[in-house]
């Protein structure tokens, strides 16, 4: 089936973006509309269920998966501003529902049309930001789930290359986990802190003004450590930059 000219795209906001940084959701809408999509925000969404999935509570995770599938499936595509939440739907929903004959096919169908937002903009829509300028230097951290479960590596860099004036400085160990790990960072705070301490030092060492990534959880972890350590580096979700919102407050800054 050819992609429709103006696909109806459901935005899965994610619970973190909903509560912590709505601008990432609005940036996603702006970029998707600019890329010719009709964006719908289904009312019945809450969280993808990752906290249950990663805690080993498979039946709760499966229950939340069924509800999320029902909320999202009636659209041409589902777009998520987070590699890890997108990977939960794309990779893990079919796994946790594989023994449920009624829901497994629906999980597979949803998985096949669910995309991380920058992968969708780049690979599916072939979109590039136009007339977006941000004279700044930035460095990019590859969040693990997006990188290893969805193959997101070059898409954000291709999109960011089209932002006028923005220079990307490579980050040493860009593919090394930042130590967030969802519930890991509160269950094992001392280990998490040791990991993110090294990450923050590596980010600082780039000399870049901005830290960009595609997952708010990792960004909050790294930005929170940078701020505690007194670093001047400011953090944004990359899609905020792509939507021309790089002149607004960074994570943790007041408007």
């Amino acid at each position, binding site marked *: 089936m050819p992609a429709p000219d103006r696909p109806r795209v459901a935005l899965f906001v994610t619970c973190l973006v909903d509560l912590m940084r709505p601008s990432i959701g609005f940036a996603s809408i702006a970029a998707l509309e600019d890329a010719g999509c009709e964006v719908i925000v289904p009312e019945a969404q809450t969280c993808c269920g990752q906290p249950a999935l990663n805690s080993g509570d498979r039946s709760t995770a499966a229950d939340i998966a069924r509800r999320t599938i029902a909320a999202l499936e009636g659209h041409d595509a589902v777009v998520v501003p987070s590699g890890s939440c997108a990977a939960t739907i794309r990779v893990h929903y079919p796994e946790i529902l594989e023994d449920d004959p009624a829901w497994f096919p629906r999980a597979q169908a949803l998985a096949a049309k669910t995309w991380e937002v920058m992968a969708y903009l780049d690979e599916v829509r072939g979109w590039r930001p136009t007339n977006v300028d941000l004279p700044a230097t930035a460095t990019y951290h590859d969040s693990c789930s997006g990188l*290893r479960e969805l193959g997101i590596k070059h898409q954000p860099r291709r999109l960011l290359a089209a932002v006028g004036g923005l220079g990307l400085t490579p980050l040493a160990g860009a593919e090394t986990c930042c130590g967030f790990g969802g519930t890991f960072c509160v269950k094992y705070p001392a280990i998490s802190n040791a990991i993110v301490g090294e990450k923050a030092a590596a980010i600082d060492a780039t000399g870049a003004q901005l830290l960009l990534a595609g997952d708010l959880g990792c960004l909050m972890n790294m930005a929170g450590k940078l701020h505690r350590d007194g670093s001047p580096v400011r953090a944004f979700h990359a899609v905020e930059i792509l939507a021309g919102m790089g002149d607004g407050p960074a994570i943790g800054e007041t408007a």
Partner: protein
Amino acid sequence: MTAAFAARVDAALADPVLKIAVERTAGTAEAKRTLAVDAFPDFEAARTRAAAIKDHVVANLGAYLERFEANATAAGATVHWASTAQEACDIVLALCRQAKAKSVARSKSMLGEEIGLPHALAEAGIERIETDLAEHIIQLAGERPSHIIWPAMHKTREQVSALFKASHHAPHEEETIAAMAESARRHLRDAMLGADVGISGANFLVADTGAVCTVTNEGNAELSLVPPRMHIVTAGIEKIVPSMPHAVHLLRMLSRSATGAPLSQYTTFYTGPRRPGDRDGPAEMHIVLVDNGRTRMRREGLAEMLRCIRCGACMNHCVVFRQIGGHAYGGTYPGPMGAVLTPAIDGLAASRDLPNACTLNGKCQEVCPVRIPLPTLLRGWREKSWREGLEPASVRSGLALWAWFARRPRLYRAATATALKSARLMGGGWLSRLPLAGGWTRHRDMPAPAPKSFMDQYRQGRRR
């Protein structure tokens, strides 16, 4: 987090020398592995083939073990079967007594550690000479291995120098690695050559020849196994490969993944004891095949873990291991592979922290030469821990409350709106202290939540 694990982690994180030692070795290994993998024509295809070889063997384990037994026996070795660690130790001790052994020379074997052989030998009053340099170091220090291929990884060369000076009869004077190695050689060589029995593990058991393969970089296996009158091998049953070409393929993967070397310095295949006309070799060769939970692992969803060839790449690349080192894991095997194996060997109740103390970042799976889906297996342990009620009540009730709302979007919205409203009282910007999130704010700041949720703002008409 259990108190025992927390104490080990705190001790590890508070040890600045440990961090230096782990970074030196794992950092070098990571860099060298990357070069070796990049230089290898289609390493990804080679990983797939390695995984297929192991899967085939694990699925047909009984048949290959019988073939190995027949061929090893035909070559003159005696094969013994042990279903538990205790049985394995008992067999080894009985053989040592039969050989009237006062001392044994041991070539490094993680299976030996797994079954508690060093302890069993001590209990039996048999002197144990560890001949691998790193095993020698930790024997002198009275410690356990902290890594499966570098047992003394947790020690810096400066610490080792001090240890040698305190323990060796003619220690090095020059502070160089070569002089230190020479000191160990002087100390070990006579004891090694005078041992009554040589004990080794096996990197591979070759079914169609009955050969046992060991790899070392020091030649200590050959020196400890050939001169004594008896060679005892203790090996996990999953070490079997069908034939030499399979062993060679896995050897290429093993050394590259472990150290980045194309091959280890010494790779030896031992096929039976000394034959008539041989110039040297032991009069007897005994091979103890150890199950110790492996057939149960195969039955209970951990068959993929039996692919493991013990290269250590998963731990070298693990962000958690790089911070806490090997001893904090508390089991024989550390790192991601240890976090899968230890619950199977020591029980989940005592080790449920290990599969949880992982960010599920997937790097271990990416570097595994036999494509073990380590994060998936770790999730499996988390699910079992949840089902069996081993997770703390606070975690269970917190998750249950969250899940109750997550299933009810309208109530979820109302509850989050109330929560955001009260969060506004804490102010905007960065928060450095938060109720219920001390684990976060002890070490980092937390951005204040949004004044209003995305969903509320969207409903009220905001679009950009």
